[in-house]
């Protein structure tokens, strides 16, 4: 549905997007992940035909966005970072105007406006001025605007930025609902968002693609799935040596301690599930087994690891790195 080939965008001497290539299949939700200033918005603006690329090609729904911009734009819905609302129009007037300029046939306009208002839950604000809407409603009207011509491709630039947790959740649900009918590309710098809504992730940093994969694979790829977290109440004795002696365990690291409760990260030979043996060992010793679970790496860690691997000379420039 979307194909990007060797896309490069330079602003003067600054390279915002550097030789990016990726594909998005029909009905898929692709997450575009990167720190602020990584080139997410620029890539999206190129895809929507807002600005041309310096080099490379981009196709949306089979149309080259540079050669056939009108055809491509007819099939693209775009929600920029700030919803492009006219403050002096009511929601209804605004959506009617957008329907006109997006080329919705006049006979269908009314029905489309009503349909998107239902879909994005803004119908109760139909006669409210856009300038008087709350941030959450503005975002939803922005989404309604992007949907009005029932586009094949939806491009959403940070759709949940600035919303409260409830609104974020609603927006995510809505985006998930929309997938299938629409191919969606959304950008974000918030990692949980990607793992919750997207089927595939493109991580970009400083204009370059660092990784393309499913959120699950990305976390697996970094650490394997063979690290377990175990929390034991060993009545004050040191459990690490005992855990280390379990067959298949390669390393045990103490990760936290609260009174007599001690948590360990247990690494095992890859592909070997040592949970049963671990549980057995702890229980036969008469200790309390409080918690045992696979220690999944968060996308945060994946992200930091990937962007650091890519840029070893200047780790300091990345800003603060949260202590996991």
């Amino acid at each position, binding site marked *: 549905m979307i194909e990007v080939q060797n896309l490069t965008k330079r602003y003067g001497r600054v390279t915002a997007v550097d030789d990016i290539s990726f594909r998005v299949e029909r009905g898929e939700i692709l997450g575009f992940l990167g720190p602020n200033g990584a080139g997410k918005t620029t890539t999206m603006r190129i895809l929507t035909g807002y600005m041309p690329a310096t080099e490379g090609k981009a196709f949306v729904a089979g149309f080259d966005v540079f050669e056939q911009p009108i*055809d491509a734009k007819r099939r693209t819905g775009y929600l*920029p970072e700030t919803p492009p609302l006219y403050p002096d129009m009511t929601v209804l*007037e605004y959506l009617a105007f957008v329907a006109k*300029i997006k*080329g919705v046939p006049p006979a269908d306009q009314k029905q489309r406006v009503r349909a998107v208002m239902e879909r994005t839950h803004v119908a109760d604000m139909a006669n409210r001025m856009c300038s008087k809407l709350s941030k959450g409603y503005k975002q939803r009207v922005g989404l309604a605007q992007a949907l009005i011509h029932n586009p094949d491709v939806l491009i959403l630039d940070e759709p949940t930025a600035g919303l409260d947790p409830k609104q974020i959740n609603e927006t995510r649900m809505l985006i998930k609902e929309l997938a299938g009918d629409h191919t969606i590309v959304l950008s974000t710098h918030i990692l949980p968002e990607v793992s919750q809504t997207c089927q595939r992730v493109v991580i970009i940093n400083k204009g370059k693609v660092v990784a393309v994969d499913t959120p699950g694979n990305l976390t697996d790829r970094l650490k394997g799935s063979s690290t377990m977290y175990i929390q034991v109440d060993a009545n004050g004795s040191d459990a690490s040596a005992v855990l280390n002696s379990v067959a298949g365990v390669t390393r045990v690291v103490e990760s936290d301690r609260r009174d007599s409760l001690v948590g360990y990260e247990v690494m095992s030979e890859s592909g070997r599930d040592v949970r049963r043996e671990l549980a057995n060992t702890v229980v036969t010793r008469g200790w309390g087994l409080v918690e045992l679970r696979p220690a999944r790496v968060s996308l945060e860690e994946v992200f930091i690891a990937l962007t650091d691997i890519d840029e070893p000379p200047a780790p300091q420039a990345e800003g603060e790195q949260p202590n996991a």
Partner: protein
Amino acid sequence: MRNILAIAGKELKSYFASPIAYIVIGCFAALYGFFFIAILRYFVGASMQAGLTGPQAMNVNQQLIRPLLQNVTVVVLFLLPMVTMRTYSEEKRSGTIELLLTSPLTDFQIVIGKFLGAMALYGAMLAVTLFHFAVLFYFGRPEWKPVLTAYLGLILFGGCFISLGLFISSLSKNQIVAATSTFAVFLLLWVITWIGSFIGPGGDKLTAYLSIVDHFDDFTKGVIDTSHLIYYISFITFGLFLTAKSVESERWRG
């Protein structure tokens, strides 16, 4: 065409949704009314005197309508920057330009739509003067043909300012910057004839050709000279062309 009208309609609506349309039309009505009364009083006084000295009647078209419409051009010079200042600046500042530029519209459709929207407001402003003309036609017998050509001239004259104003607005995110520079350029095009006499032989002809008001004069006399028509139409076309190019260059620069 539907796209152009959609943009034009939106522009016109946004003028009337904000105070701009009311302020511009209100100011215009007040100033025009003032000029109308002042010139009418003068005309009435002069024609009474003329009636005393001899039997010849004063010409309403020559001595009333012409100076009146020339004053209109001055008012227009002051008011039109307020009409055009927000056309692009506001869209750029609020980010709605992203909506327009990512919609299936060409840059020219957007520019022409905005131009027509501003022209419609200008037309609404000129419509105020119809009232005063109705009074003149009711009480006097002016010739209507020169009045008609004068209106054509006014529309073309305003079109030049609007196309130029659009271009200047497309250069800045700031409405005040756009309005001020538009006003400065308008004024310069106005007074350019003043330097005509001392920039060497032929200079006065050159500046008279460039001056945007000198071309208007013939229209008030009831003359439609193709050279003036061509001047105005090419001015408007060039202004719109520059605007479209400026928007396009903005895309490239990002």
